[in-house]
């Protein structure tokens, strides 16, 4: 478990402990699911995530975006939690709970899309590097080194500055900063299956490289990539909230959690519920993702199987 964590987190150094695993060939996904199901934490995480997704999808049924989420009501500003407003109202008189529920859309989608961006970019590059090796591998990996030696939050800030402040650019920025990790994982995974006989034989009968990668190599190196992706969504959500907190994320008046936290910070003395609730929302979401991600990782770690 720990070694795995190291190789995921290890961005700057050379002494990665490679992800050395033997995979059960038949239906690995079903096997993983069987393992994950046994983990209580994972179930808790999944239930929370399910609720969050449900909330995000059905927010429109409970709240009207225009009149309850965006519309201000100055006379109702900064009311503490009450029966009418369970989490109080913000400085522009908007219901905090409604905005938090609506905000789950932003946080979840930013997290997921950012990781998708990273997944797409990283796995493509990693697979190419791993499969072809040689000069191409060298170039890709040196670029990966360069990108990963720039502190990721600073890189993300610079990218948002370069592209302009918007939700999509936030996703891109976080996606790009998460890419190096995927490149490494994908490359390592591909290297491991690359020399196996069935790949050799596919090559021998003249199957094109991209087809070999897509059809034969990648599906067999999926597990570490999945682990990486699950855990990355969690950190992507934190990063996105952090950037919004710095005023570089989802633009107002959208109810994004990090942005709400930043806005609430000005009222930290007398209305600290404005700081409390958005942070709690972020934490619960990330916790759920981590619980689930840990379980997936444990399920895939052969050393933990007894």
């Amino acid at each position, binding site marked *: 478990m720990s070694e795995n964590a190291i190789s995921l987190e290890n961005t700057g150094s050379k002494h990665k402990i490679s992800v050395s695993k033997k995979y059960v060939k038949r239906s690995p996904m079903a096997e993983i699911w069987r393992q994950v199901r046994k983990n209580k934490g994972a179930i808790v995480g999944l239930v929370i995530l399910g609720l969050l997704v449900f909330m995000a999808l059905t927010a429109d049924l409970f709240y009207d975006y225009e009149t309850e989420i965006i519309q201000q009501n100055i006379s109702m500003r900064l009311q503490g939690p009450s029966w009418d407003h369970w989490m109080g109202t913000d400085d522009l008189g908007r219901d905090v709970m409604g905005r938090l529920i609506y905000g789950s859309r932003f946080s979840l989608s930013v997290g997921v899309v950012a990781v998708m961006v990273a997944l797409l970019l990283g796995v493509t590059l990693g697979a190419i590097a791993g499969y072809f090796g040689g000069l191409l591998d060298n170039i890709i990996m040196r670029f990966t080194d360069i990108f990963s030696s720039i502190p990721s939050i600073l890189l993300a800030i610079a990218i948002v500055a370069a592209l302009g402040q918007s939700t999509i650019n936030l996703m891109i920025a976080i996606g790009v900063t998460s890419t190096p990790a995927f490149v490494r994982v994908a490359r390592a995974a591909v290297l491991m299956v690359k020399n196996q006989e069935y790949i050799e034989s596919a090559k021998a009968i003249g199957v094109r490289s991209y087809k070999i990668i897509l059809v034969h190599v990648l599906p067999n190196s999926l597990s570490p990539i999945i682990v990486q992706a699950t855990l990355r969504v969690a950190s992507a959500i934190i990063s996105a909230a952090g950037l919004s907190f710095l005023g570089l994320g989802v633009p*107002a008046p959208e109810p994004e959690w990090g942005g709400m936290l930043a806005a609430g910070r000005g009222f930290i*003395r007398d209305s600290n519920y404005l700081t409390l609730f958005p942070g709690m929302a972020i934490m619960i979401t990330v916790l759920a993702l981590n619980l689930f991600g840990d379980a997936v990782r444990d399920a895939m770690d052969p050393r933990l199987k007894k």
Partner: protein
Amino acid sequence: MKRSSLIKPVALLACIAGFSIMFAGCSDKKADETEVMKTGYKKEIVIANSTDITNLDPQGSNTAVNKRIFSLTHETLFRADAQSNISLGMLKDYSAVSDREYEMTLNEGILFSSGVECKASDVKFTFDRAFESSFTSKSVALVKSVTVVDEYTVNITLKEPSQEFMMTLTDETLSILSEAAFAENTAEASSIGTGPYVLEKWVPGDYISVVKNDKYWGQKPFTEKITFRLIGEGSSRVIALSTGEVDICLDPPPVELSYISDDEDLSLIQMSGSRMTYFAFNMKKDIMNNQLVRQAIAHAVDKDNLIIGALEGRGTAHNTTLNVGLLGYNDNIYPYDYNLEKAKSLLTQAGYPNGFDMILTVTGNERNTVAQILQAQLKLIGINISINSMESAAQKAMLNEGGHQAVIYSWSNANRTDYTARNLFYSGSGSNRMFFADPELDKLIDRALIEPNVEKRKQLYVDFQNFTLDKLSMIPLYTDILTVGANAKLKGVKYHQGAKHDFRYMYIEE
């Protein structure tokens, strides 16, 4: 004037002159201040800034936060007090040769912190340098020539007469710099001035400290050391004040003022500020260039509501196009009351009965909140605002290139009416964010500058306000209330509505 050149070679006489100037300087001050010099003072006074100073060149910046430092370390030829009364600064004497030519004589014995005496050549050097900097070039645009008459006397000739030139010379951006320091390539030569304090250390992003200048020619300050510490977060600034970590807290956040006013050891200073925030329209863009549309918007903006929502009520509705305190300022001529019916009918008249979509560009938290409130208010007359929240650098580029439709912007000036009118509204001015261009208005601004009669000048500026309010390329929104939290024992600060507080002779008795 001529007398000054006679004593120059005699060192002894120069010394005596220096002393007499010192006494002369003292006698200007109030008697009680010289009296309290005998008791003990707190050695160091710490001031919490909300924003960082950007550089140490008086000609390289013009924000209040920087000017507060330069007013300690540097001096100007003339001085203006908080009420815009002009007095001699470094000058001993001056005379107007004609309506556009002045002869100015420096006091003798004024030393730069490097120990070099300040002479007429330094004044000339300062002006020559000022032409090159975008922060000062507008101020000296009218200057035709600066010539050194003798060691302490300069002749300044203007291209055209200006009623505001002396006020211009009080601005910190025209602080006198040391030619020798620049010639010797001293590190941070621009930080060397003749003020009562000397720069000690600047750690960008953390603090800047100045210490008493022992060579200062005028009245010596009471406090040994003044430190400006950057504490960006409002609550932290107030806490630092409450715990005594700092003695002065600038811009305490409005929601936390009660923590200062309720504390016996602290005092809360409040005054009307001079910074006006306005809603500017790009006159080069369709819809925005329709006067009726702009007037309709003006009728739909509820400024009081805006001030409550965005400023915790800590502001006053601003109803004209000049800053508070400027010559001719008149806020009784604003013709647009809050009236949604009228707004709608004007909008219909303009050809947009169902409203339209527009983009409002903003930067920073406060303006973002303002934009959100305006968005909600204008929705009532069918105008859909989308807020384009940008970083200030990106916004600056957009504004300079004229890509915006409308923007929330601010202007702060407490004493230069022409400078304000010219920079905000004159055709082609760099800070004319509306791209407003009207030859008639340009003529009016030019005429006001040279009008020698103050009453007539005042009237011309009233005409200016009427004109610009009618055209309404900008809707003035509000002026902040300036607040400062301070140690209750602090004395001697001269607060300034443009936030350029004069900290030179402050002290805390111990």
